[in-house]
């Protein structure tokens, strides 16, 4: 009874071997760069920044849908990482940086709760890379915009703990244990937040179900 359903999320065992090798190689490079940075080589730290800045910006942007605030959070995360480089205890640099960035994003989320901002980014903006709207046909483009807005609105309606867990799981591909480490909670809590968040998202998006059924 171990066949997988179409759409079911793959488990950690099902990651292709080439991807795993590439990940291990990347971790080795990161570890060497951390060593050099600890000896005072700023250039080595900046190589780490270059390797991870896109991923961290995308991660934080999904948690804090405001470009400037997300950029500030990422910059603050790299400052914090540099300041606390000596506290890095090995393992995945990507996860470590992710944890710092998520904490910076959560600080911003807490302040946003006091001073809410609009969760609807302008997708027609030229600065989206790759272009936010993939389709050439006007009808399909309108649908993409609608879908993105509906999803952003529904995600914004979730408690931020649930939203963060879902984004880390679905968008960034972290597993339950990594998210638990990043968020500083138990694996059971992470699973519960994700499952409850998914059900809540489905309920929130029920009136717009057609937008999601390709």
């Amino acid at each position, binding site marked *: *009874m*171990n066949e997988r*359903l*179409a*759409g*079911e*999320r*793959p*488990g950690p065992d099902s990651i292709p071997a080439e991807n795993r090798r590439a990940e291990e190689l990347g971790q080795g490079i990161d570890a060497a760069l951390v060593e050099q940075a600890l000896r005072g080589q*700023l250039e080595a*730290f*900046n190589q780490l*920044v*270059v390797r991870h*800045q*896109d991923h*961290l*910006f*995308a991660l934080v*942007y*999904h948690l804090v849908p405001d*470009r*400037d605030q997300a*950029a500030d959070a*990422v*910059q603050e995360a*790299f*400052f914090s990482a*540099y*300041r606390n480089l000596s506290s890095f205890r090995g393992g995945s640099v990507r996860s470590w940086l992710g944890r710092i960035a998520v904490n910076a994003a959560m600080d911003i989320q807490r302040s946003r709760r006091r001073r809410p901002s609009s969760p609807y980014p302008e*997708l027609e*903006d030229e*600065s*989206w*890379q*790759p272009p*936010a709207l993939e389709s050439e046909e006007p009808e399909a483009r309108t649908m993409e915009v609608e*879908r*993105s807005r509906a*999803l*952003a609105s529904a*995600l914004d309606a979730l408690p931020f703990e649930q939203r963060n867990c*879902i*984004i880390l*799981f*679905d*968008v960034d591909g972290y597993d*339950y244990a990594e998210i638990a480490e990043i968020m500083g909670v138990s694996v059971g809590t992470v*699973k519960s937040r*994700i*499952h409850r968040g*998914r*059900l809540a*998202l*489905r309920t929130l*998006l029920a009136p717009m*179900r057609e937008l*999601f*059924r*390709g």
Partner: protein
Amino acid sequence: MKTGSATGHANHDESLVVRLYGNDVGPEERSRALDLVAGCEECAALFADLGQIAWATAARPTPARPREFTLTAADAARLRPEPQARGRSLWRGLTRSLGGAFAALGLAGILIAGATTTFAPAAQPASLPYSNSQEDQAGNQNALGAGLVPPSAQPNAAAESAGTGSAASSSDATKLAAVPPAASFGESASLAVRQPVSSPSATRQGVGAAPLSPAQPSSGGSVDTRLVVLIVSAGLLLIGLLLLFGPRLRSRRIRS
């Protein structure tokens, strides 16, 4: 054949389907969840919706990174703690914790000394020896003069004055109303409390007439100790506050 009736689905465990999607089921649960998805239209729709929402979430566009996040040499210099700065922060931490400890000790000392001063006289009168000395009587008169003796005790004091007839005449008593109280509040109060206990007969016969010497204070010989504790505590509190707030005030003055 899928069963899609609302009543049938109402009995189905939706969370099991959600956990199946999240690959968070054991072998037995997995089998049950697969049966639900295969046998119930609603459960199948739920499973499909979860997949579509997750796909759409992952496909949400991200704007281009607005800037490089690399650190400049100036950033690095600002962020990397220098040994001198580290030593300074260690020293600051030490003074702060010492200051806190001193201030807490000082405050506790002052409170304890204050509490014993307030409560000791009320607790001790029974154990004190009767006193019939002139000093004591003068103290009583002072207490009377200061209005500290309760009205019920005043006739006793007058009777005592009349009975002994030596220490204070009635004219003296009227004069004493104008005499400022020489004793401190604590002493006057303690004497005022002791006053009703001494009976005129006992006073006349001179029972327990041993006078209190100046070195033997009226409240059981602990005033000196209390005073020392109070002074030391105040000193500790002052030092503690200086250690706590001194560096901050200094840096503010430098900044301004």
